[in-house]
């Protein structure tokens, strides 16, 4: 096997390094991008990329790819498991329609030129399960974000205004769960669900604790920023899926106002499409995307991702257990409720997005509005897989954001409700190819705090995608079908310097790293010991049995801060 590559004559777009569609060569050695001089005298494999687009491998910063939620989804949706994607041969058996098995997840990302994906909601007590599943996903680098927003420990330290202990607890929890960062899902709301309720504003009191969602969010931001974690607080807002929720979203975004970080945002708000509804009922519902975009564009320390729905099958699965119950009541579809002790909960409900359904069409339009109206340096392309649909349709979203003509065609197929309830038909914006590459590579890498990802500069991981698209010639406004087709199947997907897929065919398999963040050196772990011992009386496991040891993981990559 060659351990050096020379990608020749490709047209490179590398937004982080200011490369805008320039013909240049890329050199790879030992899994990293290197200078040409480094590969002199090596056994170099040359890849001719003449007239092809060469970019960094895609980075999916928010997807649900491992853990008890997706696995329960698979169990309760056998009908999702009838699409055979690969028969066991040189590669693993892989099945799934939208809900994929673990190998299928890795393979489908690889075929598309994506090389990293982050599991966005890990129930801490289920960490072992999540890592077992992450370890069963080939081809990509990965990590998991444990959920903190409804954990009794967090409520307790926020209530006591004890940021030091909160920081210590976060460091402890990330170490125990081998987690990457702090995810917050409907803060306080899932605890209220334990009593059959929810929270309806940032200032509702959480049952049993003298804290509010506002205090939970700001305390966690403060703690994460003082710890200097790679990634900021990653927030699924309160009131998800409720008409009128866009006001809460805007109020929440503004909570970041008091904080700053030179390297990245201090708050990432996720799948905002589900939190961008105006109106006061499903009859009067309309888009709140424009107002959210105004707020986002006026702030420099918040980022979002879209949560774009794709027409067709999906499965709603979130840590937002009360929302999932509401969805079940709304659609009558199957429902599974999950309880993770004093940490939070989750729910799962099958879903189909239908173009002629006014609400689904509205959701689809809002996702696109957010992608188009918000500054490309602040919005990442996601479908919140599998909540909004398959990640394999990212190329559809990419093409749509770049072509008004394509949007006009699609608008004719959807419910006319979007004409009056959204501004999508009037939006002329067409993102450039460079912006789209940024929204799928360099931006998510920056948001996650991974300097070696999302770009092609010397020293970066050699995660590279080559597409059959010449950026110097392509007219992205009119040739949207070509754009879609090109991004759907990478001509080459290279991960850590190894060619994994070629023209949609898998050629090699690798096992990526699992990143986790070790912040225990920044805090005094003794400070919370008595609290841990006390609280573990309420757990179904003993403190010494809680968590995941590093040696249990296939390829752990510890990031010490």
């Amino acid at each position, binding site marked *: 096997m060659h351990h050096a590559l020379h990608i020749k004559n490709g047209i490179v777009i590398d937004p982080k390094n200011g490369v805008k569609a320039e013909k240049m060569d890329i050199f790879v050695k030992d899994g990293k991008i290197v200078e040409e001089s480094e590969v002199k005298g090596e056994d170099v494999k040359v890849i001719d990329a003449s007239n092809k687009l060469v970019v960094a491998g895609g980075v999916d910063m928010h997807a649900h790819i491992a853990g008890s939620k997706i696995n329960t989804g698979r169990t*309760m949706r*056998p*009908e*999702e498991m*009838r699409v055979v994607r690969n*028969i*066991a041969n040189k590669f693993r058996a892989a099945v799934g329609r939208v809900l994929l098995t673990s190998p299928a997840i890795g393979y489908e990302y690889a075929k598309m030129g994506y090389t990293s994906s982050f599991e966005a909601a890990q129930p801490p007590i289920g960490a072992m399960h999540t890592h077992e599943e992450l370890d069963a996903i080939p081809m990509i680098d990965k990590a998991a974000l444990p959920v903190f927003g409804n954990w009794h420990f967090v409520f307790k330290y926020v209530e006591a205004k004890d940021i030091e202990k909160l920081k210590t607890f976060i460091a402890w929890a990330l170490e125990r769960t081998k987690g990457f960062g702090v995810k917050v899902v409907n803060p306080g709301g899932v605890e209220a669900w334990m009593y059959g309720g929810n929270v309806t504003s940032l200032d509702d009191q959480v049952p049993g604790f003298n804290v509010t969602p506002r205090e939970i969010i700001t305390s966690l931001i403060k703690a994460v920023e003082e710890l200097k974690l790679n990634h900021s607080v990653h927030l699924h807002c309160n009131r998800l899926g409720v008409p009128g929720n866009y006001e809460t979203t805007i109020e929440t975004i503004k909570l970041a106002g008091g904080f700053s970080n030179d390297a990245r945002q201090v708050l990432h708000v996720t799948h905002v499409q589900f939190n961008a509804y105006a109106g006061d009922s499903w009859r009067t519902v309309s888009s709140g995307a424009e107002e959210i975009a105004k707020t986002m564009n006026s702030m420099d320390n918040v980022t979002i991702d879209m949560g774009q729905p794709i027409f067709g099958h999906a499965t709603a699965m979130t840590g937002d257990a009360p929302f999932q119950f509401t969805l079940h009541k709304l659609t009558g579809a199957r429902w599974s409720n999950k309880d993770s002790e004093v940490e939070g909960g989750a729910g799962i409900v099958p879903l189909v997005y239908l173009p002629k359904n006014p609400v689904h069409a509205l959701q689809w339009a809002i996702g696109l509005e957010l992608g188009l109206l918000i500054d490309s340096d602040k919005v990442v392309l996601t479908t919140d897989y599998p909540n909004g649909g398959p990640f394999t349709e990212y190329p559809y979203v990419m093409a749509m954001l770049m072509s008004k003509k394509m949007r006009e065609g699609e608008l004719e197929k959807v419910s006319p409700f979007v004409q009056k309830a959204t501004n999508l038909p009037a939006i002329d914006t067409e993102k450039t190819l460079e912006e789209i590459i940024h929204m799928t590579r360099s931006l998510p890498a920056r948001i996650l705090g991974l300097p070696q990802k999302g770009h092609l500069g010397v020293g970066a991981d050699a995660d590279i995608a080559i597409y059959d698209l010449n950026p110097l010639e392509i007219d992205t406004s009119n040739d949207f079908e070509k754009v879609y087709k090109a991004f759907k199947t990478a001509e080459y997907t290279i991960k850590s310097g190894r060619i994994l897929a070629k023209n949609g065919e898998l050629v090699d398999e690798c096992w990526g790293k699992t990143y986790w963040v070790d912040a225990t050196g920044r805090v005094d772990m003794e400070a919370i010991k008595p609290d841990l011992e006390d609280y573990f009386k309420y757990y179904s496991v003993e403190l010494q049995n809680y968590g995941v040891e590093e040696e249990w993981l296939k390829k752990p990559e510890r990031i010490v801060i």
Partner: protein
Amino acid sequence: MIIIKPKTEFVVTVEAELTPDLAEKDVGEIKKFKVYYGKDVVELGELFEITKEGDDKKLVLDGDFSRVKWVGCRMSDGEIVVKGSVGANCGAYMAGGKIVIEGDADDWLGAEMKDGEIVVKGDAANLVGCAYYGDATGMSGGKITIEGNAGNYIGEKMAGGEIEIKGNAGDFIGTEMKGGTIVIHGNCGFVGGDMKAGEIKIGGEFELMPTFVKQEDAWVGDVNVKGEGVVRRL
């Protein structure tokens, strides 16, 4: 007419979506038809002897097909005669035509079938005319006749058509049924759980869920789901 005969006893199951459409091809082409033998894709001609007699749209499966699955899957016209027994999923998603099985049929006979006719001279196993796991609707049209006995789960989520069993059947008859008719001449176990509509007629003994209301000559339920299904004696 095409006659298909197994060359050997199969060590693992064969998955072969054999439909009468095959009879319209020439023998060379039929032999190249792709089927699964375990996890390997093989050509039909490697596992079976194939001969052609005349031009009618008919398959004769001559021999033991009890390890051959998906016979007649999605067929829409023509006829299949199985001289022996047949494996699982025979006639699944069937939309028309006729299948006659001279021996026994394995699980999932006529699952989610929409139209056409299936006749089993021997017994049928479980899950006759049911919906596949996760799907909302089972058999929605056509007729299945079983001369012998049948197993558990008959017509789950069935929405139309008729299943007739001349012998006895097992438990869970017409669970979540939404339409159509099930006739059982002999005895059976539990009947009508979460039944919403349709009719079940039974000749012998059976056990009814307690959530059915006795009316003049029938029971109506399942009241648990506000159902108006009818269970009556033949």
